[in-house]
């Protein structure tokens, strides 16, 4: 796909150069070198070289804050995604965080030969070999060791997700050799590997005979719902666990009192961070809130910017995790603190990772007080149920 095609596909040609995108962009507010509008100007003045070799190309969070307001409905995140694929064709990958470890892991799972051992954490979960419902675990087993030192346990999210499904009488099946969904590769321009992964996953799911795939990760969800269909045929319906829970709230044995994961039993006030993928990408704002409100004794307080206006956790797809990214996270956490909430609840493991990271960061002490609990909604729910026994 060349630049002209990208301009057409994303309706970039409609750009009125009004600057609304840049004025709303969380990155531009901190990083004056980055401006969505100027990226588009370059495309329209077809200076492709400048575009693909600009390191800021990888600064975009693809959070959709801009396109949500764009009077010309230019799809800037997709523009970014496509231009990055041009860039990666020319050896540009942005500055990869965590020394690219995560990316090499993702690519490795694309090997058809590999036999993963990724399900050694299932204790207490009821799963089956054959079921209508498949739970897509995602990167959790790989993230677990990488992020345990900042007290984030993606595996725990997976475990709790399954327990909650069990509570609803669902015994999901899992793919023992599930591959990376490819989200991060797609959004950093490695379309080729992404396609490989998509095909392998689609094939396995087909064999599994699943009708419904449940995700606790919004990125996997978005990828299956929006991106896969462009490359592979999926004859089953992806759903996010929050949608599923919201529909079955009455059947959830929720108890007042919450503990564990840095959450004292007295916790009353929580605030909610809309992950970009779940919120602006897929328009899922209410289900998570309905669930939180359903937990007895928990009060939900909104941040200054919430729902469609909420601000991204500051990094996406492990690239350009810069001081600006840090500033965004601190700003967002300050907003969360300002609500008086003790815990920030999210529905995306990465939000959790990035916020926790900002807190443990050296020098964080010097900045504003941003220390607070951060956890995933499924953990919150699971805890509210566990206290039953």
């Amino acid at each position, binding site marked *: 796909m060349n630049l*002209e095609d990208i301009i057409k596909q994303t309706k970039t*040609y*409609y750009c009125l*150069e009004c600057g609304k995108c840049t004025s709303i962009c969380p990155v531009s507010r901190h990083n004056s070198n980055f401006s969505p*509008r100027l990226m588009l*100007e370059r495309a*329209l*003045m077809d200076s492709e070289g400048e575009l693909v070799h600009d390191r800021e190309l990888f600064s975009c969070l693809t959070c959709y804050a801009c396109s949500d307001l764009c009077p010309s409905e230019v799809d800037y995140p997709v523009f970014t995604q496509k231009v990055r694929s041009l860039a990666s064709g020319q050896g540009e990958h942005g500055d990869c965080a965590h020394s690219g470890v995560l990316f090499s892991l993702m690519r490795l799972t694309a090997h058809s030969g590999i036999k993963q051992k990724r399900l050694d954490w299932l204790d207490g979960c009821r799963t089956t070999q054959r079921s209508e419902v498949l739970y897509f675990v995602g990167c959790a087993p790989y993230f677990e060791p990488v992020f345990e030192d900042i007290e984030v346990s993606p595996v725990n999210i997976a475990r709790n997700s399954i327990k909650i499904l069990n509570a609803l009488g669902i015994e999901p099946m899992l793919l023992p050799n599930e591959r990376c969904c490819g989200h991060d590769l797609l959004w950093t321009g490695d379309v080729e590997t992404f396609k490989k992964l998509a095909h392998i996953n689609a094939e396995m799911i087909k064999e599994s005979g699943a009708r419904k795939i449940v995700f606790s990760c919004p990125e996997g969800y978005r990828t299956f719902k929006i991106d896969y269909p462009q490359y592979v045929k999926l004859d089953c319906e992806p759903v996010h666990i929050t949608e599923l829970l919201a529909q079955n709230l009455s059947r959830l044995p929720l108890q007042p009192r919450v503990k564990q994961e840095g959450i004292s039993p007295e916790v009353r006030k929580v605030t909610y961070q809309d992950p970009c993928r779940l919120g602006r990408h897929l328009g899922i704002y209410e289900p998570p809130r309905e669930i939180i409100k359903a937990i007895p004794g928990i009060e939900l307080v909104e941040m200054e910017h919430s729902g469609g206006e909420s601000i991204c956790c500051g990094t996406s797809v492990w690239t350009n995790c810069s001081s600006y990214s840090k500033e965004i996270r601190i700003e967002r956490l300050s907003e969360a603190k300002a609500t008086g909430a003790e815990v920030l609840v999210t529905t995306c493991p990465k939000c959790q990772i990035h916020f926790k990271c900002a807190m443990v960061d050296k020098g964080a002490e010097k900045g504003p007080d941003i220390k607070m609990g951060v956890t995933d909604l499924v953990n919150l729910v699971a805890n509210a149920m566990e206290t039953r026994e």
Partner: protein
Amino acid sequence: MEEKDLSNPRMGVFICRCGINIGAYVNVPDLVEYAKQLANVVHAEHNLFTCSEEGISAIKRGIKEHNLNRVLVASCTPRTHEPLFRAACEEAGLNKYLFEFVNIRDQCSWVHMHEPEKATAKAKDLIRMGLAKARLLQPLAEIEMKVAPAALVIGGGVVGMEAALNLANQGFDVHLVEKESELGGLLRSINKLFPANKEAVKLFKPLGEEVMNHPKIKTHLSSEVKQVTGFIGNFNVTLDGKSEDNQVTVGTIVVAVGAEPLKPIGQYGYGKMANVITQLELEERMKKGEPVGQNLVMINCVGARVPERTYCSRICCMTAIKNAFLTKESNPKAKVWILHRDLMTYGVDFEDYYRKTMELGVRFIRYSLERPPEVVGEGKLERIKVYHELWRREIELPCDTLVLTTPLVPAEGNQNISRMLKVSLDEFGFLLEAHLKLRPVEFAMDGIYICGSARWPTDVTEGISQAYAAASKAAGPLRMGFVKAEAINAFVDEDECSGCGICEVLCSFQAIELQDRDGKRVSHVNEAVCKGCGTCGAACPSGAISMHHFTDEQILAQVQALFS
């Protein structure tokens, strides 16, 4: 109706209580008694609502029973109720100008509620003043003047043609005067028309034929208007040109002489360099199907929105966008850039057209007056250098055809029109309408109307709407067959008049002109044209000119009465 004897005033006073609106704050019975004592008052009464059926019949009764020859109503405001009471007088056989009105509600009871005595005293003053004026009132007639059932349309472009057809289809003889040897005006050199991209020829050719074959339209080609005398209803027009009958009399005139695109001599190498052309020249190339190049750069606002010509000519952005659209459409491989300073694609269709043009791949670059584009090339057109204002950098664009978008400028003819019809030009040389906001197709001078780009640059759609507008204004007097002159207008005492001509100069409506009266120069008021503002009277050094119904005597009588 038999003429009333006015020699000695017999005045009737009708005072309205307006329910309690006047009655509660002004002592109305007291007013009645007071009025009765005043000179020449033969009858006074009060009514619950003088404007009600009862009130109106009370006035009529009063006029008959007491043979009144002046009537005064003291109630609300003449601005809304005068027509009603005047009609009542007329129905009772009293000339309606023998009626006087004083406002004791809006000026007394409602604004002095807390001071009833003062309100009553004031009401007495006002009634006394009103009667003082009423005593001097004279009957007036609204003279009607016949209107010649024909119209003159100057200008044979689409706008002029549409105006002519509209009038002719309403059954009036129309003289259409066009200086060129064929109809169509500027459209003859246009390729296609936005927003529908319809070929211009498909619009003006059929129109031209319709005009030529219309039994009611006499077309005078290669002709010009030489002289116009007279006024609304009766303009005598002299034409010079090939047509045999060069003397016509018309009731109304529509001006549609259009405008012409500026030729940007010397700008961006225009006139010196090959392939530096105007939008109009581009259209001619397209019409002939000539190649228009692979890399087109268009520069907007050439000679417009600049210190020496500050205005925006409204239609040029769309002209450029249209030609860019058509270029891309016929040759998708071609590259087209439009350099602009604000895109004026107002409304629904233009904005939509602009978006479609973007979709086709035409690129828009905003430049600033401070850093205008430059032509780059050794004696020939190679590239255009421009500062991309929103990208904040200088760029160079390959260019084999440079198209300059220039504004419409007033036609030379305007000067002549202005002199001949005694209508003014604005600071740019466009014709000046009577009121920019609410009288856009009229001139201050009655019976003459304006449409199309002679007044201000307009596209075809707007021009045609204006043509209908001007036509409907022009049709009014023709359909009625007469024009009613203001009865309240200026009149001259020719013995007093010194013929100084101050009034003639002063009058904004060309209603006054000096005429010879057996050797003596006196000013003469054209009742058909006079609007009755009375400013002439205020300025007349010899007090020779004054205005009916507001004469010096009448007003001074009011002043005097206040203090008597």
